[in-house]
């Protein structure tokens, strides 16, 4: 007798599909999904300053991938209410290093896919509200503005 699996649909109709076909299609779907869901994040724009050692860099990357949102929220309240303005975990300091300085030819805004924050946030479809108020790129120095 043929190996069949019957499942009852809402309407009471019976559908009969042979198991090997289910197995194959599930495997195919999984393979496709895994292929699309690369666990590596997209290629990011290199920061202006680089760490001296590879170890420092990987520690920074690992911490920030997991915790950047918590650190930013924490720092935000420290600065807002207690006036603590250290460069560490300051949003402006992040931006100064990770987003290129605007030039006459190119200004990278947070709406551009290549903006450091946008690259991942677009990939994972998480809305980013910071830049409704905060500057999304380093400030021009007075000399540059004059040019």
């Amino acid at each position, binding site marked *: 007798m043929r190996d069949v699996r019957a499942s009852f649909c809402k309407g009471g109709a019976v559908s009969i599909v042979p198991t090997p076909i289910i197995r194959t299609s599930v495997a195919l779907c999984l393979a496709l999904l895994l292929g699309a869901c690369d666990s590596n994040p997209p290629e990011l724009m290199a920061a202006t300053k680089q760490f001296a050692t590879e170890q420092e860099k990987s520690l920074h990357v690992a911490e920030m991938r997991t915790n950047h949102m918590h650190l930013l929220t924490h720092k935000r309240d420290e600065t807002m*209410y*207690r006036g*603590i303005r250290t460069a560490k975990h300051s949003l402006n300091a992040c931006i100064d290093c990770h987003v290129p300085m605007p030039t006459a030819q190119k200004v990278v805004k947070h709406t551009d896919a290549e903006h450091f924050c946008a690259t991942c946030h677009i990939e994972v479809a998480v809305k980013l509200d910071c830049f409704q108020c*905060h*500057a999304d790129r*380093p400030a021009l120095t007075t000399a540059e503005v004059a040019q």
Partner: protein
Amino acid sequence: MSVEVNKIDCAEPNDQSNKIDRYRRQFLGALGVTAAAAAIAPGVFLREVQAKPDGQAITNKVRWGMLIDTNKLPDGGDSMIAACKKEHGWGDDPHASPAQQSQWVRKVTFKDNLTKHETALPVMCQHCETAPCVDVCPTGASFKRDDGIVLVDKHICIGCRYCMMACPYKARSFVHEHLENQRPESPRGIGTVESCTLCVHKIDKGEQPACIEAAPAKAAVFGDLNDPESSISKALAKYGAQQIRSDLGLNTGVRYWGI
């Protein structure tokens, strides 16, 4: 880093002065014409606004305040307003109508009907000790820092604008549109209320507010109201100064001479 503040001469008249001289001197001083101005020794500076270390929290031992002498503002504070706009980037929101434009400092002019004397003064957030905007805020976004600076925490501001209604000085504005190119030190954004921050980012670094730096010489003094030795406290103790709407008893941090 610290900033040097011009010393306001607060020395008592010397013993040789007779009573009339002393009275005249105080009277002129109170008017802001200041006989004292002539007595200011050039090059005498007080190190006053001390920079706190970056990692150190503010304390309530300090209360920042500002004293503005309207008689020494020939432009009625236009230079101060321009400096504020440049520092914080308000006033040129592309889609806002003139009535909607943010106004962190406004120039108020009034005329004495008897003497026809016109006075203009810059009016910004007065950084009240008992701020009505803080009282009414439903989310706690409007708050007073330990050092007396009244701020809006835009992270939790929902844009209800109760504070704008409550403020007797019309010091607050609302941002109606999406903004771009904000200053890194002064975030501004759609759906939030904003007002003078007393340049809190500069004060935390030990600098003075932008308007004070831009004001004509000796027209504005910034300092610690809690420190009896600060030049602002000495000047206030000696000459006194007005609060706008002092009848409300808000104990403002911004005081004026000549109004």
